[in-house]
Protein backbone atom coordinates (compact mmCIF):
# COMPACT_ATOMS: atom_id res chain seq x y z
CA UNK A 1 0.00 0.00 0.00
CA UNK A 2 2.79 2.32 0.99
CA UNK A 3 4.59 1.67 -2.27
CA UNK A 4 1.49 2.66 -4.23
CA UNK A 5 1.12 5.89 -2.37
CA UNK A 6 4.80 6.74 -2.83
CA UNK A 7 5.24 5.58 -6.40
CA UNK A 8 8.93 6.17 -7.05
CA UNK A 9 11.00 7.43 -4.17
CA UNK A 10 14.09 7.79 -6.32
CA UNK A 11 12.36 10.72 -7.99
CA UNK A 12 12.40 12.46 -4.62
CA UNK A 13 16.16 12.66 -4.66
CA UNK A 14 18.15 14.48 -7.33
CA UNK A 15 21.93 14.85 -7.14
CA UNK A 16 21.74 18.37 -5.73
CA UNK A 17 18.25 18.62 -4.25
CA UNK A 18 15.64 16.62 -2.35
CA UNK A 19 11.86 16.75 -2.09
CA UNK A 20 10.58 18.14 1.22
CA UNK A 21 8.29 15.11 1.82
CA UNK A 22 11.42 13.07 2.48
CA UNK A 23 11.54 14.89 5.82
CA UNK A 24 7.88 15.27 6.64
CA UNK A 25 5.83 12.35 5.25
CA UNK A 26 4.95 9.79 7.98
CA UNK A 27 4.63 7.08 5.28
CA UNK A 28 8.16 7.69 4.08
CA UNK A 29 9.34 7.63 7.70
CA UNK A 30 7.83 4.15 8.24
CA UNK A 31 9.52 2.94 5.08
CA UNK A 32 12.84 4.43 6.21
CA UNK A 33 12.60 2.50 9.45
CA UNK A 34 12.01 -0.75 7.52
CA UNK A 35 14.54 -0.24 4.79
CA UNK A 36 17.30 1.66 6.59
CA UNK A 37 17.33 1.60 10.40
CA UNK A 38 15.98 -1.92 10.84
CA UNK A 39 18.34 -3.30 8.25
CA UNK A 40 21.76 -1.64 8.50
CA UNK A 41 24.31 -1.72 11.33
CA UNK A 42 23.10 0.48 14.19
CA UNK A 43 25.24 1.49 17.14
CA UNK A 44 23.93 -0.06 20.35
CA UNK A 45 26.51 1.02 22.89
CA UNK A 46 29.98 0.47 24.23
CA UNK A 47 30.77 -2.85 25.91
CA UNK A 48 32.03 -1.01 29.02
CA UNK A 49 28.42 0.07 29.64
CA UNK A 50 27.65 -3.54 30.59
CA UNK A 51 30.72 -4.79 32.46
CA UNK A 52 29.09 -7.53 34.59
CA UNK A 53 26.99 -10.55 33.63
CA UNK A 54 23.33 -9.54 33.53
CA UNK A 55 24.05 -5.83 32.99
CA UNK A 56 21.75 -4.46 30.34
CA UNK A 57 20.90 -1.24 28.51
CA UNK A 58 17.70 -0.63 26.58
CA UNK A 59 18.34 0.61 23.04
CA UNK A 60 15.98 1.53 20.24
CA UNK A 61 16.84 0.24 16.76
CA UNK A 62 14.45 1.79 14.29
CA UNK A 63 11.07 1.13 15.88
CA UNK A 64 12.30 -1.92 17.79
CA UNK A 65 12.94 -1.80 21.52
CA UNK A 66 16.05 -3.90 22.09
CA UNK A 67 18.29 -4.88 24.99
CA UNK A 68 22.08 -4.93 24.95
CA UNK A 69 23.06 -7.40 27.63
CA UNK A 70 26.28 -8.95 28.96
CA UNK A 71 25.94 -12.70 29.11
CA UNK A 72 27.36 -15.10 31.68
CA UNK A 73 29.61 -16.26 28.83
CA UNK A 74 31.15 -12.74 28.72
CA UNK A 75 29.63 -12.03 25.31
CA UNK A 76 27.46 -8.98 24.60
CA UNK A 77 24.06 -10.04 23.21
CA UNK A 78 21.35 -7.93 21.62
CA UNK A 79 17.77 -9.17 22.11
CA UNK A 80 14.29 -7.91 21.39
CA UNK A 81 13.01 -6.49 24.69
CA UNK A 82 9.96 -8.74 24.64
CA UNK A 83 8.75 -11.84 26.39
CA UNK A 84 7.79 -14.48 23.78
CA UNK A 85 4.78 -15.51 25.86
CA UNK A 86 2.35 -12.57 25.78
CA UNK A 87 4.61 -9.85 24.44
CA UNK A 88 5.35 -8.17 27.75
CA UNK A 89 8.38 -5.92 27.66
CA UNK A 90 11.08 -7.79 29.58
CA UNK A 91 12.91 -4.81 31.11
CA UNK A 92 10.99 -1.62 31.77
CA UNK A 93 14.03 0.34 32.92
CA UNK A 94 16.58 2.03 30.69
CA UNK A 95 19.42 0.14 32.35
CA UNK A 96 20.07 -2.26 35.15
CA UNK A 97 21.19 -5.75 36.04
CA UNK A 98 18.89 -8.63 35.25
CA UNK A 99 20.55 -10.90 37.79
CA UNK A 100 21.40 -14.47 36.81
CA UNK A 101 18.56 -14.54 34.29
CA UNK A 102 15.72 -12.43 32.86
CA UNK A 103 12.41 -12.97 34.60
CA UNK A 104 9.18 -11.71 33.07
CA UNK A 105 7.13 -9.65 35.53
CA UNK A 106 3.85 -11.07 34.17
CA UNK A 107 4.06 -14.91 34.42
CA UNK A 108 7.62 -15.54 35.65
CA UNK A 109 8.97 -17.08 32.49
CA UNK A 110 12.76 -16.92 32.83
CA UNK A 111 15.46 -16.62 30.17
CA UNK A 112 19.23 -16.82 29.96
CA UNK A 113 21.15 -13.70 28.99
CA UNK A 114 21.37 -14.94 25.41
CA UNK A 115 17.56 -15.15 25.27
CA UNK A 116 17.22 -18.95 25.56
CA UNK A 117 14.30 -20.17 27.65
CA UNK A 118 15.33 -21.22 31.15
CA UNK A 119 12.01 -22.04 32.81
CA UNK A 120 8.25 -21.66 32.69
CA UNK A 121 6.22 -22.24 35.87
CA UNK A 122 4.91 -25.86 35.88
CA UNK A 123 6.09 -26.29 32.31
CA UNK A 124 5.84 -30.08 32.16
CA UNK A 125 2.16 -30.19 33.09
CA UNK A 126 1.24 -26.88 31.47
CA UNK A 127 2.56 -27.77 28.02
CA UNK A 128 2.01 -31.53 28.01
CA UNK A 129 0.53 -32.61 24.71
CA UNK A 130 1.59 -29.42 22.86
CA UNK A 131 4.44 -29.37 20.36
CA UNK A 132 6.16 -26.76 22.54
CA UNK A 133 9.25 -27.67 24.54
CA UNK A 134 12.24 -25.94 26.10
CA UNK A 135 14.11 -25.84 22.80
CA UNK A 136 11.30 -24.22 20.79
CA UNK A 137 12.57 -20.95 19.33
CA UNK A 138 9.14 -19.38 19.77
CA UNK A 139 9.61 -19.76 23.51
CA UNK A 140 12.91 -17.83 23.50
CA UNK A 141 13.55 -14.10 23.56
CA UNK A 142 14.34 -13.28 19.94
CA UNK A 143 17.96 -12.28 19.38
CA UNK A 144 19.03 -9.65 16.85
CA UNK A 145 20.10 -11.50 13.71
CA UNK A 146 23.59 -9.97 13.76
CA UNK A 147 25.79 -8.41 16.46
CA UNK A 148 29.39 -7.28 15.96
CA UNK A 149 31.83 -5.52 18.22
CA UNK A 150 34.63 -3.32 16.90
CA UNK A 151 37.16 -2.23 19.55
CA UNK A 152 34.43 -2.25 22.18
CA UNK A 153 31.75 -0.48 20.12
CA UNK A 154 28.77 -2.80 19.72
CA UNK A 155 26.61 -2.67 16.60
CA UNK A 156 23.60 -4.72 15.64
CA UNK A 157 21.75 -5.34 12.40
CA UNK A 158 18.18 -6.60 12.33
CA UNK A 159 18.73 -8.11 8.87
CA UNK A 160 20.19 -11.61 8.49
CA UNK A 161 22.17 -10.65 5.40
CA UNK A 162 24.20 -7.68 4.35
CA UNK A 163 27.74 -6.40 4.50
CA UNK A 164 29.83 -7.17 7.58
CA UNK A 165 30.29 -4.33 10.08
CA UNK A 166 33.80 -3.66 8.77
CA UNK A 167 32.62 -3.57 5.15
CA UNK A 168 29.76 -1.29 6.14
CA UNK A 169 31.95 1.15 8.06
CA UNK A 170 34.68 1.23 5.40
CA UNK A 171 37.00 4.20 5.90
CA UNK A 172 34.65 5.64 8.53
CA UNK A 173 36.04 2.99 10.88
CA UNK A 174 38.70 5.62 11.62
CA UNK A 175 36.20 7.11 14.10
CA UNK A 176 36.86 4.22 16.47
CA UNK A 177 40.51 3.71 15.60
CA UNK A 178 41.25 7.39 16.16
CA UNK A 179 39.45 7.35 19.50
CA UNK A 180 41.08 4.16 20.79
CA UNK A 181 44.56 4.82 19.38
CA UNK A 182 44.72 8.09 21.32
CA UNK A 183 44.59 6.00 24.50
CA UNK A 184 48.00 4.79 25.69
CA UNK A 185 46.35 1.41 26.37
CA UNK A 186 44.60 1.37 22.99
CA UNK A 187 41.12 1.27 24.53
CA UNK A 188 38.48 3.65 25.75
CA UNK A 189 36.07 3.30 28.63
CA UNK A 190 32.62 4.81 28.83
CA UNK A 191 31.86 7.50 31.40
CA UNK A 192 28.54 6.17 32.65
CA UNK A 193 26.27 9.13 31.97
CA UNK A 194 23.99 9.56 29.01
CA UNK A 195 22.54 12.97 28.23
CA UNK A 196 19.34 12.65 26.23
CA UNK A 197 17.92 15.50 24.23
CA UNK A 198 14.86 15.34 21.99
CA UNK A 199 14.78 17.37 18.79
CA UNK A 200 11.47 18.32 17.29
CA UNK A 201 12.56 17.60 13.77
CA UNK A 202 13.26 14.79 11.35
CA UNK A 203 16.37 12.70 12.07
CA UNK A 204 18.03 13.60 8.76
CA UNK A 205 18.05 17.29 9.63
CA UNK A 206 20.36 16.53 12.55
CA UNK A 207 22.68 14.36 10.45
CA UNK A 208 22.93 16.98 7.73
CA UNK A 209 23.95 19.58 10.29
CA UNK A 210 26.83 17.51 11.61
CA UNK A 211 29.15 18.17 8.67
CA UNK A 212 27.67 21.49 7.68
CA UNK A 213 30.70 23.77 7.89
CA UNK A 214 28.75 26.83 6.77
CA UNK A 215 26.55 26.94 9.87
CA UNK A 216 28.84 27.23 12.92
CA UNK A 217 29.84 30.86 12.57
CA UNK A 218 26.22 31.83 11.84
CA UNK A 219 24.28 29.63 14.25
CA UNK A 220 26.81 29.81 17.09
CA UNK A 221 27.92 33.42 16.66
CA UNK A 222 26.40 34.49 19.99
CA UNK A 223 28.22 31.86 22.03
CA UNK A 224 31.46 32.39 20.11
CA UNK A 225 31.40 36.14 20.76
CA UNK A 226 30.40 35.77 24.43
CA UNK A 227 33.14 33.22 25.07
CA UNK A 228 35.73 35.28 23.19
CA UNK A 229 35.03 38.39 25.27
CA UNK A 230 35.39 36.48 28.54
CA UNK A 231 38.42 34.59 27.21
CA UNK A 232 40.22 37.90 26.53
CA UNK A 233 39.38 39.17 30.03
CA UNK A 234 40.73 36.03 31.67
CA UNK A 235 43.86 36.11 29.51
CA UNK A 236 44.60 39.68 30.63
CA UNK A 237 44.47 38.65 34.26
CA UNK A 238 46.67 35.54 34.05
CA UNK A 239 50.46 35.47 33.97
CA UNK A 240 50.71 33.38 30.84
CA UNK A 241 48.07 35.45 29.10
CA UNK A 242 45.95 32.39 28.32
CA UNK A 243 42.46 31.27 29.22
CA UNK A 244 41.62 27.58 29.70
CA UNK A 245 41.22 25.56 26.50
CA UNK A 246 37.49 25.19 27.10
CA UNK A 247 36.99 28.87 26.25
CA UNK A 248 38.80 28.32 22.99
CA UNK A 249 36.41 25.46 22.15
CA UNK A 250 33.56 28.00 22.35
CA UNK A 251 35.23 31.15 21.02
CA UNK A 252 36.31 29.31 17.86
CA UNK A 253 32.72 29.68 16.67
CA UNK A 254 33.36 33.41 16.35
CA UNK A 255 37.12 33.57 15.69
CA UNK A 256 36.97 31.01 12.88
CA UNK A 257 35.04 33.30 10.59
CA UNK A 258 32.72 32.01 7.91
CA UNK A 259 35.29 32.29 5.09
CA UNK A 260 37.81 30.17 7.01
CA UNK A 261 35.51 27.16 7.10
CA UNK A 262 36.23 26.62 3.41
CA UNK A 263 39.71 25.49 4.49
CA UNK A 264 38.20 22.38 6.02
CA UNK A 265 37.52 19.35 3.88
CA UNK A 266 34.90 16.66 3.77
CA UNK A 267 35.44 13.07 2.70
CA UNK A 268 32.34 11.23 1.57
CA UNK A 269 32.09 7.46 1.50
CA UNK A 270 29.70 4.70 0.42
CA UNK A 271 26.66 3.99 2.63
CA UNK A 272 26.37 7.73 3.42
CA UNK A 273 29.29 8.00 5.85
CA UNK A 274 31.26 11.27 5.85
CA UNK A 275 34.25 12.80 7.60
CA UNK A 276 34.89 16.48 8.29
CA UNK A 277 38.59 17.17 8.73
CA UNK A 278 39.79 19.87 11.09
CA UNK A 279 41.65 20.09 14.30
CA UNK A 280 40.22 22.78 16.63
CA UNK A 281 43.78 23.47 17.84
CA UNK A 282 43.84 20.47 20.11
CA UNK A 283 47.56 19.92 19.92
CA UNK A 284 48.88 22.75 22.05
CA UNK A 285 52.29 22.67 23.74
CA UNK A 286 51.13 23.11 27.34
CA UNK A 287 52.55 20.92 30.16
CA UNK A 288 49.44 18.69 30.21
CA UNK A 289 49.72 17.89 26.52
CA UNK A 290 53.47 17.33 26.79
CA UNK A 291 52.96 14.93 29.72
CA UNK A 292 50.39 13.02 27.67
CA UNK A 293 52.72 12.95 24.66
CA UNK A 294 55.39 11.37 26.86
CA UNK A 295 53.06 8.57 27.99
CA UNK A 296 51.96 8.00 24.39
CA UNK A 297 55.53 7.86 23.05
CA UNK A 298 56.36 5.32 25.75
CA UNK A 299 53.37 3.20 24.75
CA UNK A 300 53.68 3.40 20.97
CA UNK A 301 57.16 4.69 20.04
CA UNK A 302 57.67 8.10 18.47
CA UNK A 303 56.86 7.14 14.88
CA UNK A 304 53.50 5.54 15.66
CA UNK A 305 52.71 8.34 18.14
CA UNK A 306 53.17 10.96 15.42
CA UNK A 307 50.89 8.99 13.11
CA UNK A 308 48.21 8.76 15.79
CA UNK A 309 48.13 12.40 16.83
CA UNK A 310 48.28 13.71 13.28
CA UNK A 311 44.97 12.07 12.32
CA UNK A 312 43.04 15.13 11.32
CA UNK A 313 39.38 14.62 12.14
CA UNK A 314 36.69 16.86 13.52
CA UNK A 315 33.59 14.73 13.02
CA UNK A 316 32.81 11.33 11.58
CA UNK A 317 29.25 10.68 10.59
CA UNK A 318 28.25 7.06 10.39
CA UNK A 319 25.00 7.00 8.48
CA UNK A 320 22.20 6.73 9.51
CA UNK A 321 22.60 7.13 13.23
CA UNK A 322 25.93 8.03 14.76
CA UNK A 323 28.03 11.16 14.98
CA UNK A 324 31.50 10.68 16.46
CA UNK A 325 34.00 13.33 17.56
CA UNK A 326 36.97 11.06 18.04
CA UNK A 327 39.62 13.63 19.11
CA UNK A 328 37.31 14.67 21.96
CA UNK A 329 36.05 11.14 22.66
CA UNK A 330 32.36 12.02 22.32
CA UNK A 331 29.55 10.49 20.36
CA UNK A 332 25.91 11.12 19.68
CA UNK A 333 23.60 8.28 18.73
CA UNK A 334 20.52 9.34 16.81
CA UNK A 335 17.27 7.49 17.52
CA UNK A 336 14.32 8.51 15.36
CA UNK A 337 11.13 8.52 17.47
CA UNK A 338 8.78 9.74 14.77
CA UNK A 339 8.83 11.71 11.56
CA UNK A 340 9.27 14.97 13.54
CA UNK A 341 10.85 13.70 16.76
CA UNK A 342 14.42 12.54 17.21
CA UNK A 343 16.26 11.50 20.33
CA UNK A 344 20.00 12.00 20.65
CA UNK A 345 21.91 9.98 23.23
CA UNK A 346 25.16 11.68 24.09
CA UNK A 347 28.14 9.88 25.63
CA UNK A 348 31.81 10.47 26.23
CA UNK A 349 34.78 8.26 26.99
CA UNK A 350 38.04 8.11 28.93
CA UNK A 351 41.26 7.27 27.13
CA UNK A 352 42.61 4.34 29.13
CA UNK A 353 46.04 5.13 30.51
CA UNK A 354 45.95 8.86 29.68
CA UNK A 355 46.68 11.43 32.40
CA UNK A 356 43.65 13.03 34.08
CA UNK A 357 44.07 16.52 32.51
CA UNK A 358 43.49 15.00 29.06
CA UNK A 359 40.20 13.56 30.27
CA UNK A 360 39.28 17.00 31.62
CA UNK A 361 39.35 18.40 28.06
CA UNK A 362 36.93 15.82 26.86
CA UNK A 363 34.79 16.43 29.92
CA UNK A 364 34.80 20.22 29.41
CA UNK A 365 33.49 19.73 25.88
CA UNK A 366 30.88 17.23 27.06
CA UNK A 367 29.61 19.58 29.76
CA UNK A 368 29.71 22.84 27.79
CA UNK A 369 28.60 21.65 24.36
CA UNK A 370 26.73 18.41 24.92
CA UNK A 371 24.94 18.73 28.27
CA UNK A 372 21.24 19.63 28.45
CA UNK A 373 22.38 23.13 29.50
CA UNK A 374 24.51 23.36 26.34
CA UNK A 375 25.90 26.74 25.37
CA UNK A 376 26.02 25.59 21.75
CA UNK A 377 23.35 23.12 20.68
CA UNK A 378 20.45 25.27 21.89
CA UNK A 379 20.72 27.31 18.71
CA UNK A 380 21.03 24.20 16.52
CA UNK A 381 17.84 22.79 18.03
CA UNK A 382 16.06 26.04 17.28
CA UNK A 383 17.17 25.77 13.63
CA UNK A 384 16.16 22.11 13.39
CA UNK A 385 12.67 22.88 14.63
CA UNK A 386 12.35 25.81 12.25
CA UNK A 387 13.59 23.67 9.34
CA UNK A 388 11.00 21.02 10.04
CA UNK A 389 8.26 23.65 10.34
CA UNK A 390 9.29 25.28 7.07
CA UNK A 391 9.48 21.96 5.24
CA UNK A 392 5.92 21.20 6.32
CA UNK A 393 4.70 24.17 4.29
CA UNK A 394 3.69 24.42 0.64
CA UNK A 395 6.04 27.37 0.24
CA UNK A 396 8.43 25.24 -1.78
CA UNK A 397 8.93 21.61 -2.79
CA UNK A 398 12.69 21.21 -2.65
CA UNK A 399 15.61 21.38 -0.26
CA UNK A 400 18.77 22.61 -1.98
CA UNK A 401 22.17 20.95 -1.59
CA UNK A 402 23.77 22.74 -4.53
CA UNK A 403 26.64 24.48 -2.76
CA UNK A 404 29.89 23.63 -4.63
CA UNK A 405 27.92 21.07 -6.66
CA UNK A 406 29.88 19.88 -9.68
CA UNK A 407 33.26 20.48 -8.02
CA UNK A 408 33.33 17.23 -6.07
CA UNK A 409 36.35 15.07 -6.80
CA UNK A 410 35.45 11.41 -7.26
CA UNK A 411 38.19 8.87 -6.75
CA UNK A 412 38.62 5.35 -5.41
CA UNK A 413 34.89 4.96 -4.74
CA UNK A 414 34.65 8.09 -2.61
CA UNK A 415 34.01 11.78 -3.08
CA UNK A 416 36.20 14.47 -1.62
CA UNK A 417 35.59 18.16 -1.72
CA UNK A 418 37.93 20.26 -3.84
CA UNK A 419 40.45 22.56 -2.10
CA UNK A 420 38.81 25.57 -0.44
CA UNK A 421 35.37 24.00 -0.72
CA UNK A 422 35.00 22.97 2.95
CA UNK A 423 31.52 24.44 3.10
CA UNK A 424 30.42 22.22 0.23
CA UNK A 425 27.10 20.45 0.63
CA UNK A 426 28.76 17.26 -0.60
CA UNK A 427 28.04 15.44 2.71
CA UNK A 428 24.30 16.08 2.35
CA UNK A 429 24.41 14.96 -1.29
CA UNK A 430 26.28 11.84 -0.21
CA UNK A 431 23.80 11.06 2.58
CA UNK A 432 20.82 11.45 0.27
CA UNK A 433 22.47 9.31 -2.39
CA UNK A 434 22.81 6.51 0.18
CA UNK A 435 19.24 7.15 1.34
CA UNK A 436 17.90 6.72 -2.19
CA UNK A 437 19.85 3.49 -2.65
CA UNK A 438 18.50 2.06 0.60
CA UNK A 439 14.95 3.16 -0.16
CA UNK A 440 15.01 1.51 -3.57
CA UNK A 441 14.69 -1.62 -1.42
Amino acid at each position, binding site marked *: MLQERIPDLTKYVEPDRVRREVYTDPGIFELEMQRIHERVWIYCGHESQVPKAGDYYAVQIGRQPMLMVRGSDGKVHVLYNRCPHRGNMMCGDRKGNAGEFFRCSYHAWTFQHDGKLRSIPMMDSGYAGTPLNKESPELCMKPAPRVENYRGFVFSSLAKDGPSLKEFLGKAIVAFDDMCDRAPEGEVEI*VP*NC*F*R*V*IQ*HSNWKIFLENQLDALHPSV*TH*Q*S*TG*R*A*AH*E*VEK*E*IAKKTKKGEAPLS*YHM*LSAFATVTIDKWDNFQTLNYPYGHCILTGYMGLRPQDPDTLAYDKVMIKAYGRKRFEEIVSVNIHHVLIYPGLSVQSPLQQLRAVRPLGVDRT*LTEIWHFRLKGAP*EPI*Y*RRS*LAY*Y*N*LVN*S*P*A*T*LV*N*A*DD*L*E*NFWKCHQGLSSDGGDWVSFARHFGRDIEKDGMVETAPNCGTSEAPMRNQMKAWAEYMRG
Partner: protein
Amino acid sequence: MAKNTQHEVEQFLYQQAEFLDGKHWQPYIDLFTQDGVYWMPPEPSYQTWEGQVAIFAEDKNLMTVRMKRLLHPDAWSQRPLWETNHVVSNVIIEKQTRDEIVVRSRFHMLELRRDDVRHFAGAYRHELRKTKNGYRIKLQRVDMANAQAAYEYVLQAWV
Protein backbone atom coordinates in the same frame (compact mmCIF):
# COMPACT_ATOMS: atom_id res chain seq x y z
CA MET B 1 18.49 30.03 66.04
CA ALA B 2 17.41 33.60 65.63
CA LYS B 3 14.08 33.89 63.91
CA ASN B 4 15.38 36.75 61.76
CA THR B 5 18.12 34.49 60.30
CA GLN B 6 15.46 32.19 58.88
CA HIS B 7 13.66 35.23 57.52
CA GLU B 8 16.81 36.76 56.03
CA VAL B 9 17.79 33.53 54.31
CA GLU B 10 14.30 33.09 52.86
CA GLN B 11 14.31 36.65 51.56
CA PHE B 12 17.67 35.98 49.94
CA LEU B 13 16.38 32.85 48.15
CA TYR B 14 13.25 34.64 46.98
CA GLN B 15 15.36 37.51 45.69
CA GLN B 16 17.52 35.07 43.70
CA ALA B 17 14.42 33.45 42.16
CA GLU B 18 13.06 36.88 41.30
CA PHE B 19 16.27 37.81 39.48
CA LEU B 20 15.92 34.65 37.36
CA ASP B 21 12.29 35.19 36.46
CA GLY B 22 12.97 38.87 35.74
CA LYS B 23 15.98 37.99 33.53
CA HIS B 24 18.20 40.20 35.68
CA TRP B 25 21.28 38.17 34.81
CA GLN B 26 24.03 40.43 36.17
CA PRO B 27 22.39 40.95 39.59
CA TYR B 28 21.89 37.17 39.66
CA ILE B 29 25.59 36.53 39.01
CA ASP B 30 26.50 39.19 41.59
CA LEU B 31 24.84 37.05 44.27
CA PHE B 32 27.79 34.66 44.00
CA THR B 33 31.15 35.17 45.75
CA GLN B 34 34.19 35.79 43.53
CA ASP B 35 34.98 32.05 43.73
CA GLY B 36 31.30 31.01 43.74
CA VAL B 37 30.00 28.09 41.70
CA TYR B 38 26.57 27.14 40.35
CA TRP B 39 26.34 23.37 40.07
CA MET B 40 23.70 21.00 38.79
CA PRO B 41 24.89 17.37 38.99
CA PRO B 42 23.32 14.81 36.64
CA GLU B 43 22.40 12.59 39.61
CA PRO B 44 22.11 12.98 43.40
CA SER B 45 25.02 10.57 44.03
CA TYR B 46 27.62 13.11 42.84
CA GLN B 47 29.75 14.51 45.66
CA THR B 48 31.77 17.24 43.96
CA TRP B 49 31.43 19.46 40.92
CA GLU B 50 35.10 19.32 39.96
CA GLY B 51 36.24 16.90 37.29
CA GLN B 52 32.79 15.35 36.96
CA VAL B 53 29.97 15.20 34.49
CA ALA B 54 27.66 18.12 35.21
CA ILE B 55 24.62 19.70 33.64
CA PHE B 56 25.92 23.01 34.96
CA ALA B 57 29.27 23.58 36.70
CA GLU B 58 29.86 27.27 36.26
CA ASP B 59 32.12 29.73 37.98
CA LYS B 60 31.55 33.43 37.51
CA ASN B 61 33.48 33.50 34.23
CA LEU B 62 31.35 30.80 32.67
CA MET B 63 28.23 32.38 34.08
CA THR B 64 29.28 35.57 32.32
CA VAL B 65 29.64 33.67 29.03
CA ARG B 66 26.13 32.32 29.49
CA MET B 67 24.77 35.80 30.28
CA LYS B 68 26.49 37.42 27.32
CA ARG B 69 25.12 34.71 25.06
CA LEU B 70 21.61 35.17 26.38
CA LEU B 71 21.85 38.89 25.69
CA HIS B 72 23.45 38.62 22.24
CA PRO B 73 21.10 39.78 19.46
CA ASP B 74 21.93 36.67 17.41
CA ALA B 75 21.14 34.13 20.11
CA TRP B 76 18.49 32.63 17.85
CA SER B 77 16.95 30.38 20.42
CA GLN B 78 16.36 33.41 22.66
CA ARG B 79 14.14 35.15 20.15
CA PRO B 80 10.89 33.33 20.89
CA LEU B 81 8.73 34.09 23.87
CA TRP B 82 10.42 32.57 26.89
CA GLU B 83 9.33 33.00 30.50
CA THR B 84 9.96 31.18 33.75
CA ASN B 85 8.24 31.17 37.09
CA HIS B 86 10.03 29.88 40.19
CA VAL B 87 8.52 29.08 43.55
CA VAL B 88 10.96 28.38 46.40
CA SER B 89 9.86 26.79 49.64
CA ASN B 90 10.65 24.25 52.42
CA VAL B 91 13.56 26.39 53.58
CA ILE B 92 15.64 24.58 56.21
CA ILE B 93 18.84 25.91 57.70
CA GLU B 94 21.19 22.93 57.79
CA LYS B 95 24.05 24.52 59.70
CA GLN B 96 25.39 27.84 60.70
CA THR B 97 28.76 29.21 61.79
CA ARG B 98 29.97 32.74 62.38
CA ASP B 99 30.81 33.28 58.69
CA GLU B 100 28.76 30.71 56.84
CA ILE B 101 25.34 29.26 56.61
CA VAL B 102 24.08 26.20 54.72
CA VAL B 103 20.47 26.17 53.66
CA ARG B 104 18.32 23.62 51.86
CA SER B 105 15.14 24.38 50.01
CA ARG B 106 12.81 23.04 47.32
CA PHE B 107 11.78 24.67 44.07
CA HIS B 108 9.22 24.35 41.33
CA MET B 109 9.81 26.04 38.03
CA LEU B 110 7.39 26.41 35.16
CA GLU B 111 8.86 27.38 31.82
CA LEU B 112 6.98 28.69 28.84
CA ARG B 113 8.74 28.61 25.50
CA ARG B 114 6.59 29.53 22.52
CA ASP B 115 3.50 27.42 23.19
CA ASP B 116 5.26 24.72 25.17
CA VAL B 117 5.14 24.46 28.95
CA ARG B 118 7.74 22.48 30.84
CA HIS B 119 7.90 21.77 34.54
CA PHE B 120 11.12 21.38 36.51
CA ALA B 121 11.40 20.78 40.23
CA GLY B 122 14.01 19.80 42.75
CA ALA B 123 16.17 20.75 45.68
CA TYR B 124 18.57 23.64 46.20
CA ARG B 125 21.43 23.56 48.65
CA HIS B 126 23.08 26.94 49.15
CA GLU B 127 26.39 27.38 50.92
CA LEU B 128 26.22 31.04 51.84
CA ARG B 129 28.94 33.32 53.10
CA LYS B 130 28.03 36.26 55.29
CA THR B 131 29.53 39.46 53.89
CA LYS B 132 29.10 43.12 54.69
CA ASN B 133 26.79 43.31 51.68
CA GLY B 134 24.63 40.45 52.93
CA TYR B 135 24.72 36.79 51.94
CA ARG B 136 26.76 35.64 48.96
CA ILE B 137 26.70 32.14 47.39
CA LYS B 138 29.87 30.07 47.63
CA LEU B 139 28.24 26.99 46.14
CA GLN B 140 24.71 26.42 44.94
CA ARG B 141 23.88 22.81 44.32
CA VAL B 142 20.75 22.07 42.31
CA ASP B 143 19.42 18.52 42.36
CA MET B 144 16.71 18.60 39.77
CA ALA B 145 14.18 15.76 40.07
CA ASN B 146 13.99 15.48 36.29
CA ALA B 147 17.75 15.83 35.71
CA GLN B 148 18.03 12.38 34.09
CA ALA B 149 14.84 12.60 32.05
CA ALA B 150 15.05 13.14 28.30
CA TYR B 151 15.00 16.88 27.61
CA GLU B 152 12.43 18.24 25.19
CA TYR B 153 14.68 21.09 24.11
CA VAL B 154 17.49 22.20 26.47
CA LEU B 155 18.02 24.54 29.43
CA GLN B 156 19.00 28.07 28.47
CA ALA B 157 19.57 29.74 31.83
CA TRP B 158 20.20 28.68 35.41
CA VAL B 159 17.32 26.87 37.05
